[in-house]
């Protein structure tokens, strides 16, 4: 396989993929655990009906409705993970940055929930980046992690993306504001992209990639 990535960057990429899949599979497992409880309860209520104890139809309907909702949520989580997996396709040399940002923020929802922070994205469509999606996504994840590190519970992590001449400008900041450290360049799979702390947030600038 010709991946054209130095070993060090490949190791960072594998670390990133491990984090994303661990988090996403936890999310799926949680949905399955809830569906399991609700369907078992339904089964028990119906078994009691066979023994002459009438179940509450409203409760049955509510439980079935919730199972449907949770199956939908599990399906969304699987779709996000599948879309992420396809970002690593070797034949994809172009990235829709806004789409990738949205995808990674969806996958970052669980780590954000665990820290008690909410996520907000405002991204305008920008030029396609001439890089493999997974490399850009590793950079986005690293910036989200670094920003979330400094967030107090109840904070909002805002991400904004806009076009700039020849590339993109992506900002990561917290509300209420808190100083954020930039991820070290050696931790990123796209070291040619500028990532720096600016004000109370992180600024990512792409130029030669569009």
């Amino acid at each position, binding site marked *: 396989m010709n991946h054209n990535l130095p070993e060090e960057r490949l190791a960072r990429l594998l670390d990133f993929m491990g984090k994303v899949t661990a988090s996403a599979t936890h999310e799926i497992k949680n949905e399955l655990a809830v569906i399991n*409880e609700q369907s*078992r309860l339904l089964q028990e*209520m119906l078994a009691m009906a066979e023994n002459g104890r009438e179940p509450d139809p409203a409760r049955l309907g509510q439980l079935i409705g919730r199972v449907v909702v*949770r199956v939908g949520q599990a399906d969304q989580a699987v779709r996000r993970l599948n879309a992420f997996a396809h970002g690593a396709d070797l034949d994809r040399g172009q990235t829709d940055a806004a789409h990738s940002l949205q995808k990674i923020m969806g996958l970052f929802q669980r780590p954000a929930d665990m820290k008690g922070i909410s996520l907000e994205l405002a991204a305008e469509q920008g030029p396609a980046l001439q890089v493999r999606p997974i490399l850009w996504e590793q950079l986005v994840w690293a910036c989200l992690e670094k920003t979330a590190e400094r967030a107090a519970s109840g904070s909002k992590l805002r991400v904004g993306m806009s076009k700039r001449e020849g590339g993109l400008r992506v900002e990561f900041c917290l509300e209420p504001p808190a100083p954020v450290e930039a991820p070290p360049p050696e931790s990123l799979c796209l070291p040619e992209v500028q990532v720096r702390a600016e004000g109370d947030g992180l600024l990512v600038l792409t130029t030669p990639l569009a």
Partner: protein
Amino acid sequence: MKVLLIDDEKELVTTLSERLDLRHIANDWATSGEEGLELIKRHAYDWVVIDLKMPGLGGLEAIQRIKKTSPSTRIILLTGHSAAEDLDHALELGADRYLVKPVDIDVLLSLMQTDKAQEEWPR
């Protein structure tokens, strides 16, 4: 027997609570470690069933505080797919049993009904 269920996933904990109700097992539930500790200060529980990964006060820290507040309360740790080192740490902190999600209520009840310590933690 009185049981306290602690999990940040409200639908899981309330449904499990309802299933225990059907079996006439007294129980309360909480959706955070902090909320669970408040209940433990006010009520006596024989068993606490607690999720490992929760926002805020996580399962491991909560186990330590539960054992400090109520040493006789026994603890079953609920895990998704945890690393063996997390489970070892939980055992060191005072967890008595573990159960991997999804919960099999018969297994949960049998864990509560036996005095025998769980022999092996998963590796």
